[in-house]
């Protein structure tokens, strides 16, 4: 993208965007504040997936597990431990990191499709345990009405909390992609044999990437608890994992902001379409087919192609 948009333009637009994001809750109704909060944290989730998927070339088919685990850990920590709720926000991402470390060590021995399938198996195991453990996790009902510290309990304050955390997280992830580790990761994606030959321990680097992705997915999960005050087992289900994949694809998975854009498009469409039909999944399915056939590089990829053709 840097090749197409000049640095100055990008900074100016970014600045304007930031100002809008900070001001709009003052004059838009509560519903939109909630909606943008959801877009932000889902965009964060999709961007975290893209670290391993688009930049790492790893077949992460069940990313939602780390999101759901972070959310459940946060909610359960707040409710069951009796300690300060802020600890919940620490525990959530920590649990996700632990889970991605364990699952990573188990799955990283395999590559490509087999990695994805083993991850789906492990993820399904986590899901079904959460689903059946009614006494601890609330099972199918999930957990509702998680109490939050006053400072972030109103929709607007929850929004600002989400905004700040998301911006910081995105910034950190961007730095990581631009760092030597990010270069090595992309090298591994494009040519693992060569990377190994020039001195990179491929499996270990991939494992670190998985942990980073899991960490930020866990943060997204904790943010969901803040915004929605609930957790439910579907957050760990494979359908959500594929939806996040679609967001990355739709926005463009070779660009950094693609997944965020994809998340925004899908959530906005879902909200809009659901006002006049209950068949949103049908619309999503057709949209997906359209993207697969006509926009394989996603929206941002398409725009980039068009703009570079002009110049």
């Amino acid at each position, binding site marked *: 993208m840097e090749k197409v948009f000049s640095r100055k333009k990008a900074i100016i637009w970014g600045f304007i965007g930031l100002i809008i994001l900070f001001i709009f809750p003052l004059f838009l109704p509560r519903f939109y504040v909630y909606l943008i909060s959801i877009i932000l944290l889902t965009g964060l989730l999709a961007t975290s997936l893209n670290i391993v998927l688009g930049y790492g070339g790893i077949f992460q088919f069940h990313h939602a597990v780390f999101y759901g685990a972070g959310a459940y850990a946060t909610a359960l920590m707040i409710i069951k431990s009796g300690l300060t709720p802020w600890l919940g926000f620490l525990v959530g991402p920590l649990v996700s990191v632990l889970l991605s470390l364990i699952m990573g060590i188990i799955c990283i021995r395999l590559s490509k499709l087999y990695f994805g399938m083993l991850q789906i198996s492990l993820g399904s195991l986590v899901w079904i345990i959460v689903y059946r*453990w009614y006494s601890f996790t609330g099972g199918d009902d999930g957990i509702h009405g998680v109490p939050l510290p006053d400072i972030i309990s109103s929709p607007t304050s929850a929004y600002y909390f989400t905004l700040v955390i998301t911006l910081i997280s995105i910034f950190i992830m961007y730095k990581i992609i631009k760092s030597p580790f990010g270069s090595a990761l992309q090298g591994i994606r494009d040519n693992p044999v060569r990377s190994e030959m020039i001195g990179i321990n491929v499996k270990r680097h991939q494992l670190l990437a998985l942990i980073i992705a899991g960490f930020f997915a866990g943060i997204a999960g904790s943010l969901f608890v803040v915004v929605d005050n609930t957790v439910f087992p579907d957050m760990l289900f494979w359908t959500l994992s594929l939806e996040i994949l679609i967001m990355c694809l739709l926005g463009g998975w070779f660009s950094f902001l693609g997944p965020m854009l994809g998340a925004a498009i899908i959530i906005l469409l879902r909200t809009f379409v659901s006002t006049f039909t209950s068949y949103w999944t049908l619309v999503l399915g057709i949209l997906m087919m359209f993207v697969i056939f006509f926009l394989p590089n996603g929206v941002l990829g398409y725009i980039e192609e068009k703009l570079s053709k002009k110049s």
Partner: protein
Amino acid sequence: MDLIAQIFSTKILSQIFVGLSRTTILFIVSSGLSLILGVLRIPNVAHGSLYMIGAFTAYTTSMVFGGGNTGFWMSLIIAPLFVALISLIAERGLFQYLYEREHLMLLLLTFAFSLVFGDLVKMVWGAEYKSVPVPPMFQGYVYLIGGLPFPLYNFFLLIIGPIVAIVLWLIVNKTKIGKIARAAAVDREMVDAVGINVSWVFAYVFIIGCLLAGLGGALVAPTVSVTLGMDHTLIMEAFLIVIMGGLGNIWGALLGALIFGLAQSLGILIWPQFGIVFPYAAVIFVLLLRPTGLLKSTW
């Protein structure tokens, strides 16, 4: 001691049979999935939706024919054929243009189909669950060792399972098209070069695979509530079974379905609340020892 042993064994036996009849359904659906995965290299996420469509179609057919024995047998014929028709349209209309793309794209396309099918079922049949009556000829019980009653319909499933397995084996191994399909699975270009229209071979395999999903749905219909969402859990289980058994290996699907079905029913016996976790744990255990599955995969 004797009494306990007796009770224990009949209870276990009964659970084993229950597990085995569940195995039949799982096997029929998974074998279709495995076939498509092995020959076409497509992870067909829509397989669960086709199973669901099979079940709902069986309901309607059964109702149309009065819910009796005729209705049942008709549904066993019509539902799989209807599902096969849908998959033919999908394959010729959209799938065949994507064979050159990466697996991920094909997987996402089948996922898109599952979304579309899911909502189409909701549109056509509505959101409430449907009940398909057990056909009169299979109502009642069979009496096992120890006098334990076992539903006659489940017994019927136990018999159907091996029959389907044998028929499938004959088609794949003994017919000309089966041999071509197996060759195409290994080396598509060679088969093309020999002058065979690989495209139609793929279509043929795809339709048979989907037909099996529809059959599974039609067979399961009298034993469960036919609901939306039955596609989601089943596709997950079918995939795990296929992965456990070896991609593209039909006997692997049988073995996987056996392990899965038995682990589930015996698991519930040992630990009622979490019994359902046992099959998932079994899959992981197998994959840790043999990551490519129990039997040889065609990949």
